[in-house]
């Protein structure tokens, strides 16, 4: 029984033109993501883990179409079984496809956050819906009148969720939603992602936190220098990782400070 995946990434390659040399005028194309293949089903959380620079954020940016001008892209992305071209993406983005960016610098610094959230909502019910969203994300009503710089990192993160997650959403791309959160807030964000998936959305969670990924995702894709090394079932990240299929995933798991840490690595 094969069902159509919600999102299917086929042979995605992203390269960058860097300008080097003393005057910064010598171009050089650096591949950042190579031959990426991934599927996400409805109701599933797929975590993509990897070090910074492994290309995991670029994957997210490629899906939501916000790669910088310097990028060269090839390969294909299918949404619901049909290619996701830029016209279709523009139509779906913010309705069915939501994106939670990594940086908390994304909100407009010159607009109260409540108004920014209302802008994403149907105009007739914007005020009510925004209040409901703020209540859901445990944001005080006075926060709505504050500007981004007045909020802490954790609060901004929740505002980003309130802006990004809509009722009609079917696919959520969350790019590193956890850094800078204290443990309680972290737990809250993660279980919220789980709830969204349990309600039927597909979630792509980009993170470098292996423990968080193993805790809430269904499957974990491990990236290393622009390639997906392996896709593991998250239940395999347990004990000493004996059931992990790939050696690299096993070594990553064992190198956690709470496990073997440096005992496993040759000094």
């Amino acid at each position, binding site marked *: 029984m094969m069902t159509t995946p919600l999102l299917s990434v086929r042979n*995605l390659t*992203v390269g*960058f*033109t*860097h*300008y080097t040399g*003393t*005057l*910064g*005028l010598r*171009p050089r194309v*650096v591949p*950042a*993501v190579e031959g990426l293949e991934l599927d996400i089903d409805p109701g599933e959380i797929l975590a993509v883990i990897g070090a910074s*620079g492994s*290309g995991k*954020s*670029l994957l997210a*940016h*490629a899906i939501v*179409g*916000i*790669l*910088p*001008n*310097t*990028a*060269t*892209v*090839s*390969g*294909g*992305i299918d949404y619901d079984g049909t*290619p*996701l*071209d*830029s016209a279709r*993406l523009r139509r779906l983005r913010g309705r069915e496809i939501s994106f939670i960016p990594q940086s908390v610098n994304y909100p407009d610094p010159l607009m109260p956050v409540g108004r920014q959230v209302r802008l994403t909502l149907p105009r007739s019910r914007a005020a009510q819906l925004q209040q409901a969203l703020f209540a859901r994300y445990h944001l005080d009503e006075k926060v709505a009148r504050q500007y981004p710089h007045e909020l802490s990192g954790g609060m901004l993160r929740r505002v980003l969720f309130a802006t990004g997650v809509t009722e009609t959403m079917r696919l959520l791309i969350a790019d590193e939603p956890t850094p800078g959160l204290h443990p309680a807030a972290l737990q809250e964000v993660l279980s919220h992602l789980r709830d969204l998936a349990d309600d039927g959305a597909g979630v792509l969670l980009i993170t470098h936190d292996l423990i968080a990924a193993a805790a809430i995702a269904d499957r974990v894709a491990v990236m290393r220098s622009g390639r997906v090394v392996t896709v593991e079932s998250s239940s395999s990240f347990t004990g000493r990782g004996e059931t992990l299929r790939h050696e690299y995933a096993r070594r990553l798991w064992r190198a956690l400070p709470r496990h073997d840490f440096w005992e496993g690595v040759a000094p």
Partner: protein
Amino acid sequence: MSHPSPAPPRTTRRRSASVDLAIAAACVGALLLAIVVTAWLLDESSLRSHAGARLMPPGPDHLFGTDWLGRDLFTRTIMGLRLSLTVGVVTALLSVAVATVLGIAAALLGGWVDAVISWLIDLSIGIPHLVFMVLVAFSVGGGIKGIVIGISLTHWMSLARLIRADVLHLRHSDFVLASRGFGRSEWFIARRHLFGQVLPQALVGFVLMFPHVVLHEAALTFLGFGFSPQTPAIGILLHEGMPHISSGMWWMALFPGLCLLLVVLAFARLGDRLRVLTSSPGQGG
């Protein structure tokens, strides 16, 4: 557009930026070469007046025609361009040098040095620069010296301000702080870290400044504060040609003017391309 399905149009735009730069650079190079070589090949004797060949329209003997003294306008235009370009290079270099030194000094030394330089920048920008330029050129005695000093003293400010801001930002960057931690001197930091970062900015400044300088040189000369009347400078040619336009001798002002426009446009385009390329982030992943 990052949408991978069709062929990616993103890079074509990028690539065209560097192709554009190459084309602009080739145009400027060809133009410069043509001017220098032609000026070298030309016979100086056609600069002399020929009573029999006065006010001749453009033709096979005189491509750009002759003036009211029978001097060949093609020769005079090329000579004028060569002179303008030389003055342009010297003056633009001088003002970029002033801007770089003052910009780095203001940001690095801070305190009263910064206060004085910033005040000077604001002051110089506040004065209408054509008036200022004429005053400076006049007070140092006019001629080529007047042009070079007059223009360079009035055109360093905006670049100096840019460089000062750049250096102020760089001074607190992690790699500069680390360098100090390794015991490196302020002089080392200025020379090795800051200068290298500021160089592309200065280069773009130079290329953008150049057409500006050439135009001002022509303007100063046209107004009579620049070169002496017997020098074949573009400004002089234009000045001499203007009164004859109304009496139908259009070629006297048209050709020198067009040539000046061509050179200025080529350089402005090159500068623009350079700025686009150096200001692109080129960062990712």
